Structures are given as C-alpha cells and as structure tokens.
C-alpha cells in the first residue's frame, strides 16, 4: 500500500471512531434528559439504607453510598489479593509438577489443568458455594485444632474467620486461576534451553539445586507477562462474586443502581475502579519485571 493510501485510511478510521463516539454520547444525553434525573454525583453523600453482610471497616445502613461503595471496593480488594496469592502458590506447584520427572504427577496435573480450564468459572463458583461450603452438614468438615476449621459458616484460620461466600469465591477464583498460572509456569520453564539442564547435570549438580539455581532464574522473566495477564483476568473475574452474594464492588453497585437509577454514574465508578486496580497490577508487575532484569546484569 502506498504512503498516501495509508494516510487516507487512517484519517477515515479516525472519523469513523469519532462518529461512533458521537452517536453514543448523543444517546446518553437523550436518555438522561428523558429520565429527568440528570448527571451528577451528589447522591453519593446520601444514606445508603441497605445493610452489608461483610464490611472490613465499621458500616451501618445510615452511612453514605460513597462509604458503602468503598466497603465494596475493600471487599473486592480483599478477595482479589488473597486469591492472587493462593492461585500463584497452587499454580506454581501444579506447573512444577507438570514438567517434573514423576509421570504420575504429570498426568494428574495435566488432567487438573484441562478440567479446570474447560469449564466455566461461574459454574465452578456455584459448585464451590452450593455443593462445597453450604452443603457441609455437621459443624465442621475439617478441623485442625485452633488452626484451621472448615464448615458451612466458611473458613476459620488462626482465629480469623471468613464467610462462606468469601471462602467459596476465594477457593473458586484461586483454583480457576491456578490452572492458567500453571500453564504460564510450564511455558516459562520450557523456554529455558535444554542445554542449560545438560550443563548443570554434566557438572554433577543435583536436579533440585540446578532447578533452583539455574532454571528458575532464567524462567522468571518469561513468567511475568503471562502472570500479569492472569492477574488482570482474576481481578475482572472477581465480579462474578454477585452470583453467590458476596458484597464486592460490583454487587454493591448493582444494589445502588436498583435503588437510585444512577446506572451511568455507577458504571463510570465501576469502570474507573477496575481501570485503576488493573493499572496498579500492571505497574507493580512492571516494577518486578524491571528488578528481575536489573539483577541479571
């Protein structure tokens, strides 16, 4: 394609995008004037007048919508960060076993990854909630004195108790993401040339030592892009919390929209929340990536 033609098509594209945006904004304005409530955020200071099952900071229905939204954001953050840690631990373990020498574990983990990746997350979450936690009949399913107690009321660990909604979401998100993370780990390890394995083996270095000292440091940079996109997915997937009644930011937004009809404002808040959260994740992973690269030379 000639240079002029290229420029022509680019200008055409810009006009198409601008036109499309114009139509959207026009529709929005028409709708807002028709409902007659206008566009503003003043309602944020009014009392929310609904109760929350879970709130990391003190909250009552007389608190403002803004505070309720903030509780939702905290709840989201809580489940996202803890799932992120748990998913990384499980995923790394599964990924290592997937490329390990033991063929029994290799087959088991391949099965795990396939089953988890090929079924919808929503169904898995429902399973963990209704078939998992809520169906536990007796007071306790697993009880290790004073350390861990799993029951239909959720998980209790070292005296901290977590609701069954939070627990189901945590387990569901972690298990789901761990299968994808395991594949990232496997890909990273397999990106290290076979010659590196042969070099440390021929020096009489054990498999374990060579794996830790030679293979992992070289696989780390290859983990980062894959892990970043899995973490972003995890954050976005956490909005499925609404399906099992966990009061995350999406669920609270939903309630507020029903009460106030402020759909446009609520979705702007929601989109911005996730944009900020995901930019934060991307930024942190970028810093980790840079420090890995720097430590190499």
């Amino acid at each position: 394609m000639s240079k002029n033609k290229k420029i022509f098509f680019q200008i055409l594209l810009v006009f198409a995008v601008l036109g499309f945006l114009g139509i959207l904004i026009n529709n929005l304005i028409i709708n807002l004037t028709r409902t007659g409530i206008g566009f503003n955020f003043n309602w944020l200071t009014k009392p929310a007048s609904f109760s929350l099952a879970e709130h990391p900071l003190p909250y009552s229905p007389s608190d403002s919508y803004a505070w309720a939204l903030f509780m939702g954001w905290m709840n989201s953050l809580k489940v996202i960060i803890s799932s992120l840690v748990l998913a990384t631990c499980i995923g790394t373990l599964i990924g290592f076993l997937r490329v390990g020498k033991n063929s029994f574990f290799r087959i088991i983990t391949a099965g795990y990854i396939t089953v988890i990746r090929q079924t919808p997350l929503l169904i898995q979450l429902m399973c963990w909630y209704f078939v998992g936690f809520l169906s536990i009949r007796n007071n306790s399913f697993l009880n290790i004195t004073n350390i861990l107690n799993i029951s239909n009321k959720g998980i209790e660990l070292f005296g901290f108790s977590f609701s069954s909604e939070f627990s189901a979401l945590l387990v569901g998100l972690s298990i789901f993401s761990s299968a994808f993370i395991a594949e990232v780990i496997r890909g990273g390890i397999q990106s290290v040339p076979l010659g590196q394995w042969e070099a440390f083996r021929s020096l009489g270095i054990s498999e374990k030592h060579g794996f830790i000292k030679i293979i992992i440091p070289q696989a780390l940079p290859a983990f980062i892009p894959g892990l970043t996109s899995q973490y972003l997915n995890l954050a976005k997937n956490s909005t499925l919390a609404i399906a099992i009644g966990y009061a995350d930011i999406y669920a609270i937004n939903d309630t507020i929209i029903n009460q106030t009809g402020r759909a446009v404002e609520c979705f702007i808040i929601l989109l911005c929340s996730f944009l900020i959260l995901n930019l934060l994740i991307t930024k942190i992973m970028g810093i980790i990536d840079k420090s890995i690269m720097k430590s190499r030379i």
Partner: protein
Amino acid sequence: MKPILTAKNLTKSYAKGILALNEVSFTLDQGKVLVVMGPSGSGKSTLIRTINGLETFDKGELNVLGIKISADSDERKIQKVRRRVGMVFQQFNLFPHLSILENITLAPIQVQKRNKKEAEEYGMNLLCQMGIESHAKKYPGQLSGGEQQRVAIARSLALKPELLLFDEPTSALDPERINEVLDAMRRLADQGMTMIVVTHEIKFAKEVSDQVLFIDSGKILEISSPEVFFSNASHERSRKFLNQIN
C-alpha cells in the same frame, strides 16, 4: 597403562528400528586423546553423551573410572561419574545469569562443598590458564564465542576431572576464533589430560590425538592412529568421508 574408560557392546535406539549406537566397544587409556569422527547423524554425540549419562543406553556396559554403568544404573551412580568427568558443548551452554567466575565456582561450591574463597581462587587460576582472567566479573553475553568456549572449558575443569568430553567444541565459532579454543585444548592434552573430542578439525586430530575413532550409522568402523587413519584409512567409508571434509 590404566584404562580410564571401557565401553562394551553399547547399543541404543531413540526410535524403534534405528540404532544410534550399535554394539560399540572400545577402550581409552589414561592420558590419551581420542578423536571421534563420522558423518552427520552417525551417533558421535550420542556416544559421547552416554559416557556421562546425558543419554541412557539399552544394552551393553560402561566402565568409567572404575564405576560400572549399565542400562539400569540409578541417578546416584551416574552423578558419581559426572563429578569426575567434565563436558564441553558445541553451544557453550554457559549460565547467562551468572558472572564468568560464578559459572566456574558454582559446581565446586554446590557439589564439592568447597568454601567460596578457595573456589574463587582456583577459578581465577583456571581463567588465567585460559587467558581470560580479565573477564571474570563479566557475564557470558558480553564475551565472544571463543572466549565463552574457553570459559566453558575452565568450568568443566573446576571439579578437577579425570576425563574431559568435547562435543564439536569449535563448530559454533567464527573461523578466526577456532584456534584460540583448539590451543587451549592442546595445552590440556600436553598436561596429560585424558580427552574424548568429537571434531572435524583434521589438523588438531593429526597433531594432538593418539587415536581416531570413525563411526557410521552407530557402528565403529575403525579405530586407528591418526597417521594410519589420515593417510591410509582401512575402510572405504572412512576414505570417502575424509575426501568430503577435506
């Protein structure tokens, strides 16, 4: 003469039907240099890699430095061999995330539990022998191919091996870098190191080796002195091969 290595009827196939090694038997005495030659895919790498257990074999027996290895030997026995046999690869295979000196001291510290200072002193000593002591703090990516290969040789010497294996050590190098590596190998041979070298470098083979082993389709066709092999090879296949690479 004390045999360092004895191979008896070594046989291996990767896929069914094709033999990478076919009843390979030979002996190597202490202080001798054996050059392995043969066409591409003849089994040279396979042969040299079975000696330190990078490849397993199906039948036959190996005796490396008095350690008997058979088809069903376990990892621990093979590790014993690896601690006493050094290996140098065509692609150098240096550890890119470690400095040159760390590349060399890793195995002595991890495997032989030497203290760091002692290992570093000996490592610097080896780098001096290879003429690259000024690069000790650099990383592999900052060195030329010839320098990297000399680091790899120094690394393989760090455990004070009794046998060194070279798999086409100069094939990945620019022509003007080949001699610096061959010279380092020549000095090792002069110091009495026992070596097995897969190479196409005829000049090196003529001047340094004590024996030339010619292998084709996994079978040893002849083992002779370099004088005989290069002027009067007994086998038709060897003569044809020599004509091709000359």
